[in-house]
């Protein structure tokens, strides 16, 4: 059993390296002529950063000069003007310029720039204006299982399996076995280092579940983004925005009286400052906090992916200047160490998202130890106990 598992892991590692080598080694163009390497590279990176309708692993040109794509199609689910339409993304034949038209349920669909458009009735082909917007079609409500959705579902399944088996182990013994030994310290770390100190001993249990879910969700997805499978799930604005909205909803609805009082009618400041502070605090609580959460995660992960891929692309862009061996060596060294840093960033971003979520929730549920007295003007009268505490 043990031998089989080591064999399997070796095979997996070899496969990942092979895919990695193939994914990035695509220097020739469709027509086999001279290619603008810089443009090709930037197009490839742009394509990777965006979500896609099919799971594309790598592509190559065969001896006949034909472009071959390796990957698998994913289901496309659309809500068009004629109702629900479903088909596999392979019907687009890897077209992304609106050339292939798929006809289903009496409407025709084209895919251009990773978006699916429904052509107006009677139109035989798609046309673009000078800014590459489709002029004779409309965007449809796209509920497709895209690559990112596959990533999210995969992580959900993975976490369900890993953590339910960990939870089951505690029924029989106090010490987990196998992979649970890796997970337990992480769970305890999130509980004792992130949740408890920031939310407080009284309320932390209620929110630890959410914080653990968010932490592992982001971390596993970040790490998955570093594999050559080409996931960029936490680098999608929709995903990070959704996570930020979860946190926003949780701390907004669990905020206590004190929290809302400090937002809407800040005690201890002159009366004419109170409305100004209320506007600032409201904007901070409802817009700036979630916005900073979502942009931080999105920008960090996207920037990381762009940097790694740009460094890998040095292989092609500096081929003429440094020679094939020199460019490959430089690209390997740089991308290797940046990838190591990205492994750290993957953890750090998950940690920071969880930490700030815990901090915001902690602010909303924090209770004063004791009431301060206020004088007639609303200033806090600091009692002797507080002063002593500050000095110690």
């Amino acid at each position: 059993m043990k031998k089989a598992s080591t064999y399997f892991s070796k095979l997996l590692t070899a496969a990942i390296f092979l895919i990695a080598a193939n994914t990035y080694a695509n220097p020739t163009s469709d027509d086999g002529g001279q290619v603008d390497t810089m443009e090709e590279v930037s197009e490839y990176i742009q394509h990777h950063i965006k979500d896609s309708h099919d799971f594309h692993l790598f592509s190559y040109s065969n001896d006949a000069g034909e472009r071959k794509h390796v990957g698998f199609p994913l289901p496309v689910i659309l809500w068009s003007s004629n109702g629900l339409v479903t088909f596999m993304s392979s019907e687009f034949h890897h077209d992304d310029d609106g050339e292939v038209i798929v006809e289903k349920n009496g409407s025709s669909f084209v895919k251009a720039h990773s978006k699916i458009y429904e052509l107006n009735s009677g139109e035989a082909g798609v046309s673009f204006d000078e800014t590459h917007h489709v002029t004779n079609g409309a965007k449809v409500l796209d509920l497709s299982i895209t690559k990112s959705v596959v990533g999210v579902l995969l992580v959900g399944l993975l976490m369900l399996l890993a953590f339910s088996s960990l939870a089951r182990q505690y029924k029989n013994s106090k010490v987990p076995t196998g992979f649970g030994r890796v997970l337990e310290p992480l769970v305890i770390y999130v509980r004792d280092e992130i949740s408890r100190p920031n939310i407080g001993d009284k309320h932390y249990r209620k929110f630890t579940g959410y914080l653990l879910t968010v932490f592992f969700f982001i971390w596993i997805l970040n790490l998955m983004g570093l594999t050559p499978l080409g996931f960029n799930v936490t680098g999608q604005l929709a995903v990070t925005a959704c996570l930020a909205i979860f946190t926003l909803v949780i701390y907004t609805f669990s905020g206590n009286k004190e929290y809302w009082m400090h937002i809407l009618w800040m005690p201890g400041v002159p009366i004419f400052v109170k409305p100004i502070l209320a506007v600032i605090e409201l904007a901070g609580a409802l817009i700036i906090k979630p916005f900073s959460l979502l942009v931080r995660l999105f920008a960090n992960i996207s920037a990381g992916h762009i940097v790694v891929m740009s460094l890998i692309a040095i292989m092609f862009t500096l081929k003429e200047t440094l020679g094939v061996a020199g460019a490959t060596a430089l690209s390997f060294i740089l991308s290797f160490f940046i990838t190591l840093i990205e492994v750290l960033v993957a953890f750090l971003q998950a940690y920071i998202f969880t930490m700030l979520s815990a901090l915001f929730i902690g602010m909303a549920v924090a209770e004063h130890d004791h009431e301060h007295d206020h004088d007639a003007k609303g200033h806090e009268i600091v009692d002797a106990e507080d002063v002593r505490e500050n000095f110690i």
Partner: protein
Amino acid sequence: MYNMIGAGLIVIGAGIGLGQIGGKAMEGIARQPEATNKIQTAMIIIAALLEGLAFGALFLGK
């Protein structure tokens, strides 16, 4: 062109800020090594806030 200059300015500002945060945290740790964990946590939070600001600006300027 202008957004590139803007991006450069943002990075300069964020760099100065991160330098201040990291440097002061380092000083604090050197003075009180037993408070390392607390200082580190606070440092990371403040660095994250700064980073959010800088990325937000870069994102809006794009």
